[in-house]
């Protein structure tokens, strides 16, 4: 069974946490998930196949003209931010005194 500490590490990398009970549930679920994942490795002839990252090659793609289109105003950009100051999103101090 996968160690709980590893699961906590992966959660931390994605910047969130769960409670102990939730980690226990996930630990059990991982057992099944890993068995399912094993099925991927059992496919004959998988070596040498180029991994597919897109459904099909789209030949219709072209870069659009570099023209000014619709854009959001500062007010619109900030409309959903809870803390603002001087037309900017306010966050706790990042640069400590003396670091500047």
């Amino acid at each position, binding site marked *: 069974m996968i160690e709980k500490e590893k699961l906590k590490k992966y959660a931390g990398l994605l910047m969130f946490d769960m409670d102990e009970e939730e980690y226990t549930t996930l630990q059990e679920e991982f057992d099944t998930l890993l068995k399912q994942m094993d099925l991927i490795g059992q496919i004959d002839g998988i070596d040498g196949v180029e*991994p597919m990252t897109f459904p099909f090659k789209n030949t219709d793609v072209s870069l659009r003209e570099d023209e000014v289109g619709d854009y959001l105003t500062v007010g619109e950009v900030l409309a959903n931010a809870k803390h603002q100051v001087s037309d900017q999103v306010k966050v706790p101090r990042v640069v400590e005194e003396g670091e500047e």
Partner: protein
Amino acid sequence: MYRGKSITELREELDKGSITKEELFSHANTLAHSFQEDYNSFVTIIDKPKFKERESLVSGIPYALKDNFSTSGILTTGSSNILKDYIPVYDATVYKKLKNAGAVLVGKTVLDELAMGGTGTTGHTGVVKNPWDKTRMIGGSSAGSAAAVSLGIVPFSIGSDTGDSVRKPAAFGGVVGFKPTYGRISRYGLFAFASSLDHVALFTRNVKDAAIVTDIIKGQDPMDMVTLKDDGKKYADTLDEDIKGKKLFYIKEICSKEFYKDYLDEELESVLDQFQELVQKCRDLGFVVEEVSMDQKLLEAIYPTYMCISCAEATSNNANLTGIQFGPRGEGDSIEQIMFDARTKGFSELIKRRFILGSYILQKENQEKLFKNAGRVRRMIVDKITEFFKEYDGMILPASGGIAPEFTATSEKVEKLSPRYLILENHLAIGNFGGFPSITLPYGFVKDMPIGVNITGRIKEDDLVLNMAHKIESVTGLKDQYCKVGDIDV
């Protein structure tokens, strides 16, 4: 009187003046409110719409939109606490196109949180119930959009489909669910889940309506790099083309009882029997339908392949949900603590589990074995299906191995390593792996619950898929179906 009517029928009523668009909206709004407590289709019900005079088949027609499409000035939550107060400042292309065509938005529908789920039970405003039986789920993630059409509130709704999120709930709700070719419809303004698999898709109650809506929302969009050049076709105009001699295949390892052994119950047996009856009806229509065989191991790898790719892509796509620029602000003394707190409180347990799986798959030591191998299996599956498409015009399969599950069904009841679960409940993801156009339509009942059949075709042949589905619909006797639950008609 107007409940359960199709786009075509409502168009006629509007054109001859027997009802106005304002009255039609009012009826849909009344239905939406009436069914909300029992079925929970909506996150937001619109009470004061803006009407536009437009010349189009959907002008004045009410519809519902999944709550993961941006609608300027209208709450858009993704059914997640992390976006519970988010009001977009721009419109998704699909919404803009429908607005410009004069369609009238009735509400934003509940989904599985951030579209990651297939049960309709994980939205932050509660579970969506199946109109045909309230003790059962309607499936997801486009749960509310499916229920709104199944209940006859609106004649069409928009959803998104990353693995089967429209085509599976369509089967469970007894309605039509169509996912066109990857890139046929712009995803600009749709919250990304897994970009290489995400499609815009739609629910209607008949195939013609699916063609009508697709005709309006399809087309290339400079705001979505993967969109295809418009094919210039009107799909609604080619539904009656002759299909005699068109060739369909079904996969033996999915449709034969012998492969299910201990997992074959009355429900599955009925699904497969009725499927064979439908296949015969297709032959009577003039289709050539043949059985083909495919490596069972490859089929069993569909679900883990889907999980690897979608969870990995999701971890990256949802990294912008920090509570800083939008969403509830977390607590803490540093920017990291604020984000950590917002994400811990904002995501539910289920999607945290999917994110952690995605993180695991992307760890350096697992990338080759899991992420890259999943990409390899994806290619092998798509290549095999494409090979079949050299000889056949389409693939026909049952959309699911059974009826909509009960809410009380425990995960222990579902044997997650069985071929029934791995293949039969998850094969619709093939349509997302290869971007193939794919449609589900109702074809029967088991225990008074609807079941659906799926037809998938070659990329960019959306017109042919709709044409073939339209013919098949004519022999199911279930065109225009909706659930007549509740003593309400307006």
